[in-house]
């Protein structure tokens, strides 16, 4: 049973990681905690849903087109509502993201209704069986796509000019600007990438939990917990934190009284905040920026 719980926790944790990565990417370049990440993801998932079920597009084509739209949408949000308040206190931008969240939630309800919708699964394959335990095809897709996303991010940040420019912007924006880096473009890029990750998470998890305008509310809360544990400036931390929170949630719920699940998870978050507020895998500089 433990192995089953751990695998289920890793699959759920991969979703938390994808959403958490979006939070981290935006925080690194904009110093904004994006409370709209869940509603951006949900809205874009509905777009994918429309392409697949109403326009009749093949799954992969609709998935890819949604990601392209997600990137443009994320960049548009940055350009139209975040950039105008970027020079003001970060709390203003955080407030703006809350407003964006409410607007997008209302838009999803208005456009697609509030009833439960069925989102197509990426695969109906049975999956693999190891030691009597079956891991479904959909779960393998979630794990695979998350691994691929992390790998692409690592390559982007370490080996490409754009990625290095994004890192420079996150570490010292004025200095990066003096070096000729277009920091505004980097911010738009990061918001676009975060939207892509959010849309990916939404489209992967929806077949399992059904599609509604508020489907990701609890996922986003768990993802925040994951990012706090891993570190708000660490992409690796977001992934490790997501997987960690997913496994803890699964194992505790499997063995302990259910009320202890939340207590266990948020006790971990509190302990991390008290003893290592920058997160387990983030650098010391985060402590300063968070304070």
């Amino acid at each position: 049973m433990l192995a089953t719980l751990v695998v289920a926790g890793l699959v759920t944790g991969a979703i938390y990681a994808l959403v958490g990565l979006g939070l981290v990417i935006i925080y690194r370049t904009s110093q904004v905690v994006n409370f709209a990440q869940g509603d951006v993801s949900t809205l874009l998932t509905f777009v994918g849903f429309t392409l697949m079920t109403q326009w009749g597009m093949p799954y992969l084509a609709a998935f890819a087109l949604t990601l392209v739209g997600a990137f443009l949408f994320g960049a548009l949000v940055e350009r139209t509502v975040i950039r105008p308040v970027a020079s003001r206190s970060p709390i203003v931008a955080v407030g703006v993201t809350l407003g964006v969240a409410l607007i997008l939630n209302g838009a999803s309800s208005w456009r697609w209704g509030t009833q439960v919708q069925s989102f197509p699964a990426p695969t109906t394959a049975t999956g693999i069986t190891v030691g009597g335990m079956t891991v479904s095809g959909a779960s393998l897709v979630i794990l695979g796509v998350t691994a691929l996303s992390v790998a692409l991010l690592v390559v982007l940040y370490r080996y490409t000019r754009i990625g290095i420019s994004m890192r420079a912007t996150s570490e010292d924006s004025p200095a990066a600007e003096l070096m000729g880096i277009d920091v505004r473009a980097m911010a738009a890029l990061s918001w676009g990438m975060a939207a892509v990750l959010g849309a990916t998470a939404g489209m992967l998890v929806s077949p399992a939990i059904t599609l509604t305008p508020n489907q990701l509310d609890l996922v986003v809360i768990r993802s925040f917990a994951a990012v706090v544990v891993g570190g708000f400036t660490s992409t690796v931390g977001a992934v490790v934190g997501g997987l960690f929170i997913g496994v803890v949630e699964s194992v505790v719920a499997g063995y302990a009284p259910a009320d202890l699940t939340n207590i266990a998870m948020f006790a971990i978050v509190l302990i991390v905040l008290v003893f290592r507020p920058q997160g387990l895998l983030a650098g010391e500089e985060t402590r300063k920026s968070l304070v």
Partner: protein
Amino acid sequence: MKRQKTAIMTLLLGLLVCASLVFGAVTRASAQGTAPGVSGKEVTLGAWTPESGLATVLLSISQGADAYFRWSNDHGGINGYHFKFVLANDQYNPALTPAAARRLVEVDKAFAIVTAVGTPSNVAALSYISRVGIPNVGPLTGDPALTHPVRKNIFTVMPDYTTEGAFQAQFALDNLHSKSLAVIYQNDALGKSGVDGVVKLLAQRGLKAATTVPYDLGTVNFTPMIARLKASGADTVIVWGSVPPFVPILKGAQALGYQPKWLAYLFDAAPAVLDQIPPAQVSNAYFDSWVPLPSDAAMAAYREAMAKYYPQVTSSSFLPATGWALASVFSSGFSRMVAGGAEPSWSGLEGALEGMHDFSNAYVHGLTFAPDNHQGEPAEYVMKYESGKFVKVAPYMPLPAIH
């Protein structure tokens, strides 16, 4: 300094006077039996409902009720009275419900609250609604707090969740011949009331649940909960929670190779939900309901009205059908009140509703209110989902006495 103090005291006094006037006006209306919310032949009705937030799936209940009142208006209303149905968005958040209730009563001047949505919401507004005395007819909750003890202005139609949970356990034992019962439930007032009924019925028979497993609304990973159910050896699982989790629960069971019989309440019986679940699990699922099948011939007006006023809402779902049925109960009570030419009043409506005994229309069955009983539906039937259609597998059966 002294001037400042005087100004503050004056302001506080002014606010107090205003509040007294507003609140006093409302309570006087109740005491004297006059009718706020009635302007000529237009009657304003109100409901709080989640137009946004975690439970927007329940909004279609209010849309079903609204369709009923619009359909009624389009057919001449009742004795010439027409209805205006006002919604207040409380986001299914009990912290916001009292303000939504105040808005409906004090700003919109509703004559009655009809089909107000949500267990936590109705419980949160209970104190205010009881104090003001405005009729609350057909609240969308089965929380026993609304009906036990009886409150003169609150009339629930649907069975309370504790009684419904007991009914499900009774059906499992007597009709499905279940040997071992487990419950998976949403960890809030809704789920806890349901599991309470199951446990009480089992206790009446000298039995215990194999296990009771809670979950939080919004949970993604149900594997741990399903593993517990499976480990308990239960051959029947009763599910108590809102609609969306029903899909991952049954999918999770399929993934773990667990195939018990399932019992759930009517809101889970939505084609859009059931079509997402492996057929092997759906074929083992039973749903209890007091609302007739939306596909019944007698529900033709409902289907036509939904197609006309809310074409985007799936009328085959029980959610809007429930709103429609509840609105029909208010409408029947209102009709009885004004039948002899009486003016609408709160006390008149309460008296008319209490006079409904073994009342049936196309949407409710054997409804009975009395001065000592404000919970109307006395029976439920059970259905299954087969080949894309709901079919009754057990007729209306009396609800067990559990309180």
